[in-house]
């Protein structure tokens, strides 16, 4: 069963009609070919119409769609299976919410890292809903250092509702783990490409997000806080999540306009999950183009450009 978002109701109705007509033809032999074609056309149009006018909150919902592809699916497609997952932070344990390893994309050997959400109830728990503990960030950093040692570019996939807020996470230094990643990533001497493929919530996202190139897929969000939490804190009720989503300017379109990311990667109409392969292809094109370009830049220059880019972010008045 397909999962429909609240604003996709018109699409759901049409698809139900479509199903009925297909059934009619199959089981009763009624010729509904003409109607089926019409409905299919209507579905395409409706979807296009809805998806060309998404509100920020609706994009947040698409970014969290339960059928959306997650990090390991991107890695599998991009590397065509030429990938070895590597585990553990060498200190405490292996964080299942953060995955990573070594692989090859069209002849480019790379290190791939990302938060991983689960595909069903059991796996969602196993993956801690994509919320890493400090070990996740330390695993990510270990792999980045491995990349630096062997001169491999790093590609990160960002998809997290935030770093995990738990007792053990605090005991093991969640803040320190993220902070260290920010400092070390800024100065890493190999190319870093980051792509927000779903949710980019706050420091938990940025902890693997300091790249020479940072992209967002078309229907993702990236900000300092989720719209729900923002609403709770600023309006003292969760009822203003739509308003908060607007105010935060958290969509790819706004983030690009504010020069906080380097580009937007197109998704199929209806969201990444309606055609994962098309999404993966779009990502692959961007990654390959950047890899070719970034590999020409010297290690020192790569770090320098990355540091300068992030240091230029921010808007202040100077009297």
């Amino acid at each position, binding site marked *: 069963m397909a999962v429909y978002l609240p604003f996709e109701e018109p699409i759901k109705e049409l698809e139900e009609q479509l199903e009925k007509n297909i059934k009619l033809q199959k089981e009763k032999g009624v010729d509904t070919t003409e109607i089926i074609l019409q409905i299919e056309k209507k579905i395409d149009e409706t979807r296009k119409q809805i998806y060309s006018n998404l509100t920020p909150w609706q994009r947040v919902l698409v970014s969290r769609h339960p059928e959306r592809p997650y990090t390991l699916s991107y890695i599998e497609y991009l590397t065509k299976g030429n990938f070895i997952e590597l585990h553990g932070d060498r200190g405490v344990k292996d964080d299942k919410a953060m995955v990573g390893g070594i692989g090859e994309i069209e002849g480019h050997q790379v290190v791939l890292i990302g938060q991983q959400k689960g595909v069903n109830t059991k796996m969602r728990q196993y993956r801690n809903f994509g919320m890493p503990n400090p070990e996740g960030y330390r695993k990510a950093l270990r792999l980045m250092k491995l990349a630096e040692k062997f001169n491999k570019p790093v590609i990160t996939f960002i998809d997290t509702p935030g770093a995990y807020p738990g007792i053990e996470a605090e005991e093991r230094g969640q803040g320190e783990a993220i*902070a260290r990643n920010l400092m070390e990533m800024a*100065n890493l001497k190999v190319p870093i490409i980051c792509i927000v493929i779903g949710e980019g919530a706050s420091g938990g996202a*940025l902890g693997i997000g300091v790249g020479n190139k940072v992209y967002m897929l078309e229907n993702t969000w990236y900000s*300092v806080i989720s719209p729900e939490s923002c609403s709770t804190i600023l309006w003292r009720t969760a009822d203003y999540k739509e308003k908060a989503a607007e*105010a*935060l300017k958290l969509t790819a379109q706004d983030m690009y306009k504010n020069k906080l990311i380097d580009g937007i990667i197109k998704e199929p109409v209806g969201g990444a999950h309606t055609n994962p392969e098309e999404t993966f292809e779009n990502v692959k094109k961007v990654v390959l183009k950047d890899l070719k370009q970034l590999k020409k830049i010297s290690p020192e220059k790569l770090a320098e450009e990355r*540091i300068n880019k992030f240091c230029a972010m921010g808007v202040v008045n100077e*009297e």
Partner: protein
Amino acid sequence: MGWFKRLTEGIRTPSKEKKEIPEGLWYKCPKCGHTVISEDFEKNLWVCEKCNYHERIGSKEYFQILFDDNKFTELNPNLTSADPLKFVDTKKYVDRIKATQKKTGLKDAVRTATGKMNGDDVVIGCMDFSFIGGSMGSVVGEKIARAIDYSIEHKIPFLMISKSGGARMMEAAFSLMQMAKTSAKLALLGEAKVPYISLLTDPTTGGVTASFAMLGDLNIAEPNALIGFAGPRVIKETIRKDLPEGFQTSEFVLEHGFLDYIVERKDLKDKISQSFNLLKIK
């Protein structure tokens, strides 16, 4: 020791407690209830003589405690918040800024300055919690970044005093990126081998903990400060359990290996300058 006289208006005691006592004359400790004459409280560096409670103080007080003769040159004092997102919640962000500036006499949530500490050059950045919870927006990030530049350029040790609830929500992703910006600058400070001490004071949480506050060559804290990434309320709501006694205090963070030492305010200046001296490259 005439300098503390000028600080009378700077004390920040919880307003409820304060109202019961004639303004500025007495200080009642919110922890143990002990009452002292304000002047004596200041002489004791805003620390309760009975229970050692370290009252929250701001950049003005820390600068007076740390800089010799309270002499310093402020760096980039005129940076103020822009409103890149035209942010409006229950109030317009620009109005919130203006009102807070008026109320606190501060431009934003951090001040940075350079001067002498026990005779040696130092650059100090200090956050003010009274300014929108010490939240980090573009001004905080930019001033810290420039202070680090100054440290690198003049090879002067850098001390950052953190006191913050985290990100400035009204600057959304701009605020988030200040974490990357300040951390990136610290990478350069590290390469220049200029020592950096991070002093965490009550409270230090969120994006500040997850960036410059945890990146000191030494991370140190005042006693019994709240230090953490996630706030205690968020953690409690997530795990639906009571938090252990002493969770996220300085002592807890020291015990778990993320602080080098805890220092009482009376020893702050000497211990920090001793630390910088022991790190000096000869």
